[in-house]
């Protein structure tokens, strides 16, 4: 009975009162075919101020690679160097085997870009934008817009599009010429949660079709939900690289379980449970800190006549926690 209740309780906790876990990124790389991007010791300064400092990383074919960091961390400058929009002061870059500056014109035919600070002319209509940026002759523009849910806006001027529609159009333009690598910089900035999740699904679909995605964001939840690997940047340097889970495990706070204890709860016994690091008690509520392995045994201790506390909440550490701790520790 106790085991059955535990299962029920855990299921309930994982669906309602517990902080929802972000959808895990797919970790397999179906299209992986070695590094398509390599960055070796690049640096970039503006007016003597170093914004990218000795950055190294590589991106494998078919993965979603994230660059995560606060505003001003050097993420955008790094990807702009990768796209040949800026020239690094030092170091070397290769994208699809090409130098982004020396082979800019050739590379542009194989990559797609959604820039953080870019726009389209206000009076340019959606269908005109697609036709203008299309390198191919013979594409059915309306069918293409319909595929991305923008057919109804085909005659709408850019200025009259909503924020979500504009971002969707930028994705359409970035992917229009079927690039091998696509760079998406702060793609969902300003979108409401529903629109953001729609865009996330689009990015997953893009990756599933074999395109390598480089995603720049200061939004850890987005990186955690989408990326196979991530590089965390701070003050122009990469401070850690790995899967979102690896970075969370290395730098995030502990899992916490918070509840109002039943009468007679043996705090000493809870403190000795496997995975528990410490217990704190404030205003009649107990907070247990530890690793995720403690969850089942701590929950079992909360039972009284088969009933658990109504206010039990479990908080899992997130990449956001890890980012705060990581950057905070450096500063």
């Amino acid at each position, binding site marked *: 009975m106790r085991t059955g209740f535990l299962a029920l309780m855990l299921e309930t906790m994982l669906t309602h009162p517990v902080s929802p876990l972000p959808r895990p990124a797919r970790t397999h790389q179906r299209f992986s*075919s*070695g*590094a*398509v*991007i*390599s960055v*070796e010791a690049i640096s970039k300064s503006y007016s003597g101020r170093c914004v990218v400092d000795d950055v*190294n990383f*590589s991106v494998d*074919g078919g993965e979603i690679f994230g660059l995560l960091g606060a505003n001003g961390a050097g993420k955008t400058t790094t990807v*702009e160097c990768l*796209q040949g*929009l*800026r*020239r690094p002061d030092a170091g070397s870059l*290769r*994208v*699809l*085997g*090409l130098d982004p500056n020396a082979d800019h*014109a*050739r590379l*542009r*035919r*194989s990559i797609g*870009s959604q*820039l953080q*600070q*870019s*726009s*389209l*002319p206000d*009076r*340019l209509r959606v269908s*005109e934008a697609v*036709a*203008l*940026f*299309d*390198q*191919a*002759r*013979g*594409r059915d523009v309306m069918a293409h817009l319909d595929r991305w849910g923008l057919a109804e806006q085909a005659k709408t001027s850019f200025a009259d599009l909503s924020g979500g529609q504009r971002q969707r159009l930028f994705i359409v*333009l970035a992917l229009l*010429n*079927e*690039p*091998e690598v696509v760079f998406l910089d702060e793609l969902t900035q300003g979108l409401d949660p529903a629109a953001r999740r729609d865009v996330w699904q689009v990015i997953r679909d893009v990756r599933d079709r074999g395109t390598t995605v480089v995603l720049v964001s200061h939004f850890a939840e987005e990186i955690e939900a989408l990326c196979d690997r991530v590089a965390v940047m701070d003050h122009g340097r990469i401070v850690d690289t790995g899967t979102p889970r690896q970075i969370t495990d290395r730098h995030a706070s502990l899992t916490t379980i918070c509840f109002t204890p039943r009468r007679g709860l043996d705090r000493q016994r809870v403190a000795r449970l496997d995975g528990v690091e410490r217990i704190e008690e404030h205003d009649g509520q107990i907070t247990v800190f530890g690793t995720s392995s403690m969850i089942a045994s701590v929950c079992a201790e909360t039972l009284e006549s088969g009933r658990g506390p109504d206010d039990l909440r479990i908080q899992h550490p997130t990449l956001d926690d890890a980012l705060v701790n990581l950057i905070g520790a450096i500063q």
Partner: protein
Amino acid sequence: MTAKPLSTTRHSMSPQLTERSSGSILRHLIVTEAKLFIREPIGLIFVFAFPILTVLIIGSSFEADDPAFGGAPPSAYYIAAYIGVVLAAVGLVMLPVHLASYRERGVLRRFQASHFSAWALPVAWIAVATALTVVAIATLLATTQLVFGVPAINDLPLTLLGLALGIWTSINTGIVLGLALPNARAAQGVGLALFFPSFLLGGAGPPPAVMPSIMRTVAELVPTNHVVKAIQQPWLGIGSSTTFHLIVLTLIGIVTTVMWVALAHRVTAD
């Protein structure tokens, strides 16, 4: 950590599609830019409506034999002068606002991150501005022909040379202002601040004969004055300083060309 060579087996385009030639891409860009210029109301008002409306008013405001116009009928004098107004509107209002707006809003970066070459947009701007100028002048002449009649051209080659130099300097000035000024609001403010003195003192306002000497001296320093005189004098067969005005326009054209080539890096990043 070595990136793989560019794939030669995976085509970046579906097989039923063919890649556009660079000429086709440029033509498409020019047509699209033309549509965008035409949809910009402030440019259309200053380039098309303002010169036609004002030449009809001022051309009807003087007696036909007024001696202030050096023997030419006032309407004939002003028709040539208002061609200069069209050129001033293109170079001081339409182009600067359009270009500065592109720079301010990141439109240039959007183009830079695509398959367009760095020179595609400047070429498109020059092509569209030239075409719109010619259409605006043709519209001005067609309208004035209906109301006043357009005088015969006394020296066609020299008149066309003056017009060509005027178009060249006007477009160059527009590109320089559009690249030099920080944003569209500044471009609009500076452009209008330059346009109205150019309009009033450049030949489209009171004739120089009725101005006090100090204002005549100031008017002679206004570049639009040289544009107007370079067209007006050979057209009507009046005045004797056409060569001087053509030389001044050539120098302005060379200087503004050097300036906008020097500012061309603002079309691209870094």
